[in-house]
């Protein structure tokens, strides 16, 4: 009997030590993030300042101007995307996020997201297949539009970023049993099984340190995960190293259920906790 108690206690102590190590690591990552963010913002800004000055100098031909404008757009698009993730994660962490349900045209949203990433898709010469299995009547889906948009953007951005050149990306959308399902498959390097959980932690990426080949701050998936919790969804990852990954989101239709619809228990069921003579239960 005593042995069991001490086993339990040792187990708890081990667990505590693990959690503690993770928290220390997470704090360290936050510090790293804050020191890296400077470069991530300054570099694209410096590029845009230079290029826009060159354009306004009047000495460039049309082709060059177009080329510079494209670079400016790509740099700003990326910065905007990174900042959005940073702001969303800050909002999630501060508890300020609100749910705002509207009817979302999912097909159109996927199309818009892809259009916004077109320059990155072209740059890697990727082929994107979109299969829309959503029946006509289900195309307007009740959920939070802004949050769904940032989730899809992050998954598309990851699929592009981790795809090798000339490969394809497959996107399948469907509504099954009133639940929106969108899966995004890439044929990139996949995820090491031991990293499968870690990629959802903030500021973590599959590859880290000064040798990492990919940009970004490791916020995307943790933002997706948190936003999915808010809109009542889940994220499923299927992956094999060197054989690509499929990220699938499943989102419940928001049922516009208001407080008035909930069932309260019957008689004698109002308790007022008023000051100063509150009842203590």
């Amino acid at each position, binding site marked *: 009997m005593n042995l069991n108690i001490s086993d339990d206690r040792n187990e708890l102590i081990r667990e505590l030590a693990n*959690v503690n190590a*993770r*928290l220390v*690591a*997470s704090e360290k990552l936050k510090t790293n993030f804050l020191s890296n963010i400077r470069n991530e913002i300054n570099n694209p800004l410096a590029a845009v300042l230079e290029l826009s000055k060159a354009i306004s100098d009047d000495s460039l031909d049309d082709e060059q101007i177009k080329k510079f404008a494209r670079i400016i757009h790509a740099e700003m698009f990326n910065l905007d995307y990174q900042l959005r993730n940073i702001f969303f*994660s800050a909002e*999630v*962490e*501060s*508890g*300020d*996020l*609100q*749910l705002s349900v509207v009817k979302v045209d999912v097909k159109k949203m996927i199309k818009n997201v892809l259009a916004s990433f077109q320059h990155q898709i072209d740059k890697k010469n990727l082929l994107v297949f979109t299969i829309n299995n959503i029946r006509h009547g289900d195309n307007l889906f009740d959920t939070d539009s802004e949050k769904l948009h940032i989730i899809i953007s992050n998954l598309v951005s990851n699929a592009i970023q981790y795809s090798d050149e000339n490969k394809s990306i497959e996107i399948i959308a469907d509504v099954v049993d009133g639940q929106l399902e969108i899966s995004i498959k890439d044929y990139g390097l996949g995820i090491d099984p031991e990293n499968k*959980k870690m990629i*959802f*932690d*903030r500021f973590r990426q599959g590859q880290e340190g000064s040798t990492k080949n990919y940009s970004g701050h490791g916020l995307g998936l*943790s*933002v997706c*995960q*948190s936003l999915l*919790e*808010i809109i009542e969804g889940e994220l499923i990852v299927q992956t094999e190293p060197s054989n690509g990954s499929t990220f699938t989101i499943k989102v419940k239709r928001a049922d516009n259920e208001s*407080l008035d619809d*909930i*069932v*309260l*228990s*019957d008689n004698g*069921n*109002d*308790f*007022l*906790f*008023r*000051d100063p003579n*509150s*009842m*203590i*239960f």
Partner: protein
Amino acid sequence: MLVQEFNKHYLYPSSLFVSNSEVVVDTILGSCVAVCLFDSKIKAGGINHYMLPYWNGEGLASPKYGNIANEKLIEKLYKLGATKNSLVAKVFGGANQINSTINVGDRNVLVAREQLETFGIRIISESIGGGVGRKIRFNTHTNEVLLKFLSKKEEK
């Protein structure tokens, strides 16, 4: 007859709300816990709604977790000018699902008590534990909380 119209706010899980004007905040609790804080001097109140006791380093450090939700709530009230001595707390929720062995509800309540004690904030009333969920309505200006128990089926 005059019906007074209040500003209303529905509080979702993992979020929190603070105001120094009069807002009526509704939320629904199962095993989740909501801590209502009120500063009588500046007439400001705030409420959180967390689902799990402690953040373990996974995902974002959001107020889904009690230790973070309580700290953030206290910080936000301090920013409005609240002080430790004039803040009081009410704690609600933490029901336990019958089939759950880990008693998330109980652990959620424990975190609230421990943290409020650490911060030196007195709990003046509470309705916690049990097997059914609760709906609460908190007035940020008067510190009144109206509580109703849900019927068994509606547990969240």
